[in-house]
């Protein structure tokens, strides 16, 4: 136990019978210091008692014959008293007494031995020379002093043993050599008495030792406990900080939602309102406190929708997945109906269950109305512009066809110009309508299997007259392969017409526009070659964008809305194809589109 620090034989204490693990926790040095402290603490009592009893004994043993010897003995008592008192004072004033406990124990042992020896001296010197009564007094005095030492030196059985041996050993010798049978018998009993008192001292030391160990072990436990407490407290503080942070971000979020410019609700999984922001209050006309806790379906939807909305809500909670762009007819507090687009975001816990749902609504009533008006306008535009054009172009065509009889060539020239410009106007209207359909996602295709050679020949035939007006003509080059494609025939013809008429418009006089068909890697490619001025570098990147023309001068000279190629690109992409252009070696441009071959 304290084997690692044996300062001397004096501090090697007997092991307690059963050391519990808790007792093991005591620091042996601290236990020793406590024992030394206790010994010095009781020494005052021993010093005072020794001086008092020594003085009484001096008085009792006073004899004319031995006056000097008794006086000398009392002198020794006084000297020991002073020395012991000085030792106690020195100990008590030492700031390092706990650390130097082993040394102080040794000093105490010396003092105890000197003290015991002084009493032993009294017994051996005064016993033989005194009267019977005085002998009884001495025997009583010495055994009393020995027994009294037990309590004073209870902290160390070894010190007690030295002290008691100092008293009893000379006395026993005197008794044994006195020549009296009774005294010899007493002399035989003294060692037994000595052994018993030492045994008692040993037991007492053990008890004290165990007591101090327990005290220190408890002290250590208390220290551990305080440490644990401190750590717990720290963790509590950290937890509190974390909680405050969570609360702060929660408040931030709430503040954000509260002041957001879109209506936001929070619903619990049962569909009851938890929070409502200001914008939602404004849109639906319900104040937050009126609706919190109420079933959302009960006041946000017209009654005929309640059942279907409830069903959808249940499946949404089951799936626990965000949903966007849900359109519903909703009802406001005043009964008026609006159309909203809703986004639902579930907040899902670790167990996969929905904790609450953040719902954002967007009033799209006006947007829908605008869309409807736009559609109506486009429909009107389509009908109202085409109907008069039908009459204009139709009339001019009849005149130009000659079935109405011959007219002068000037008239024919003018009616031809009028017809051509009528058709230009019609093309532009058709382009604008096409772009509108593309933008609104209503552009549809009617695909069928088409042979590309037939389509190319039809395209050339339809645009030959246009090309001739621009002093050029359209021709094929190479083999026009009869490859099949799965496309919207009218729309593909529209693309081809667009490329051919562009090429014709920009071709220099007398240089033909050439059309080639190539097939490779499961794709067929139609190329339209011209010998025009080419595409200016700055225009190449936006040639397929809407309303793009190389410059406004071109638009005035050559006509067109600048929508044609944008429409072509969209149509070709809808047919799983690509469209593009390349610079042509020797001048000019090749516009091409390619489409997947149709396989049966």
């Amino acid at each position: 136990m304290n084997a690692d620090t044996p300062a001397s034989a004096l501090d090697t204490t007997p092991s307690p019978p059963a050391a519990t693990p808790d007792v093991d926790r005591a620091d042996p040095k601290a236990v020793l210091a406590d024992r030394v402290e206790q010994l010095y603490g009781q020494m005052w009592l021993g010093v005072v008692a020794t001086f008092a009893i020594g003085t009484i004994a001096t008085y009792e043993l006073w004899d004319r014959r031995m006056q000097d010897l008794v006086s000398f003995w009392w002198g020794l008592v006084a000297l020991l008293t002073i020395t012991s008192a000085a030792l106690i004072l020195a100990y008590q004033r030492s700031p390092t007494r706990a650390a130097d406990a082993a040394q102080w124990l040794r000093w105490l042992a010396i003092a105890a031995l000197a003290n015991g020896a002084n009493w032993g001296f009294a017994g051996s010197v005064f016993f033989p020379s005194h009267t019977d009564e005085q002998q009884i007094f001495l025997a009583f005095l010495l055994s009393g002093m020995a027994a009294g030492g037990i309590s004073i030196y209870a902290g160390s059985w070894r010190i007690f043993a030295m002290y008691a041996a100092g008293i009893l050993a000379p006395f026993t010798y005197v008794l044994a050599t006195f020549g009296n049978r009774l005294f010899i018998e007493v002399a035989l009993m003294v060692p037994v008495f000595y052994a018993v008192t030492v045994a008692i001292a040993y037991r007492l030391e053990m008890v004290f030792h165990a007591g101090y160990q327990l005290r220190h072990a408890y002290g250590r436990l208390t220290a551990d406990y305080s440490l644990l407490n401190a750590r717990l407290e720290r963790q509590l503080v950290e937890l509190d900080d974390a909680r405050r942070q969570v609360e702060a971000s929660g408040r931030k979020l709430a503040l954000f939602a509260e002041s957001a410019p879109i209506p936001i609700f929070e619903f619990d999984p049962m569909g009851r309102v938890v929070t409502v922001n200001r914008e939602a209050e404004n849109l639906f006309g319900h104040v937050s406190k009126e609706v919190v806790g109420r079933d959302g379906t009960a006041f946000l939807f017209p009654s005929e929708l309640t059942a279907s909305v409830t069903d959808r809500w249940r499946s949404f909670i089951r799936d626990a997945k965000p949903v966007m762009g849900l359109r519903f007819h909703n009802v406001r507090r005043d009964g008026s109906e609006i159309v909203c687009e809703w986004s639902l975001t579930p907040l899902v816990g670790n167990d996969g269950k929905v904790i609450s749902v953040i719902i954002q609504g967007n009033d799209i009533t006006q947007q829908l109305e605008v869309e409807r008006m736009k559609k109506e306008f486009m429909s009107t535009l389509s009908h109202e512009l085409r109907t008069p054009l039908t009459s204009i172009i139709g009339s001019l065509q009849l005149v130009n066809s000659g079935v109405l009889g011959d007219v002068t060539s000037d008239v024919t020239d003018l009616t031809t110009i009028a017809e051509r410009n009528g058709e230009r106007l019609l093309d532009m209207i058709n382009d604008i309508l096409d772009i509108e359909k593309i933008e609104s996602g209503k552009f549809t295709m009617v695909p069928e299997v088409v042979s590309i050679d037939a389509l190319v020949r039809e395209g050339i035939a339809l645009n030959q007259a246009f090309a001739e007006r621009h002093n050029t003509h359209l021709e094929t080059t190479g083999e026009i392969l009869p490859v099949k494609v799965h496309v919207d025939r009218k729309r593909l013809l529209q693309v081809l017409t667009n490329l051919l008429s562009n090429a014709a418009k920009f071709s220099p006089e007398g240089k033909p526009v050439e059309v080639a068909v190539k097939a490779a890697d499961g794709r067929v490619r139609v190329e339209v070659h011209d010998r025009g001025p080419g595409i200016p570098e700055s225009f190449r990147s936006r040639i397929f964008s809407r309303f793009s023309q190389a410059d406004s001068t071109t638009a005035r000279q050559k006509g067109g809305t600048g929508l044609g190629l944008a429409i072509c690109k969209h149509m070709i992409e809808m047919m799983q194809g690509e469209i593009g252009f390349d610079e042509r070696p020797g001048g000019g441009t090749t516009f091409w589109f390619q489409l997947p071959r149709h396989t049966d």
Partner: protein
Amino acid sequence: MTTRPLQKILYVEDDEDIQRIVRLSLERIGKFTVEVESDPLAAIEHMRAYQPDLVMLDWMMPGMDGPTLFRKMKESPDTNAYPVVFITAKASSRELDELTALGAVGTISKPFSPKDLPGQLRAVWEKIPD
């Protein structure tokens, strides 16, 4: 294939300009016999009296639109057999498909070419099964 040639055509159209162009086209180029009806509400009566080979209907007309008139024709046993060709400014292919689904034998979109119109009608006529 219909072997009987197309001769008598009734055209129901409220726009008088287009009536005139179509009539000129069909009579002068196509050499058909053409009657025109401006009032869709009177069209059924006109058909019963005229007994045309083919009926051309405009889509948008005041009073009753082309598809409604077509449905009325289908309800009446003496008019339900007339082949009908719609002539319309409606551009989308979806709308043209709708007309075919109604039972129209053909659709011609406005603006049509008066030069080509007789040929287009003959092509439709020839595809009608007997």
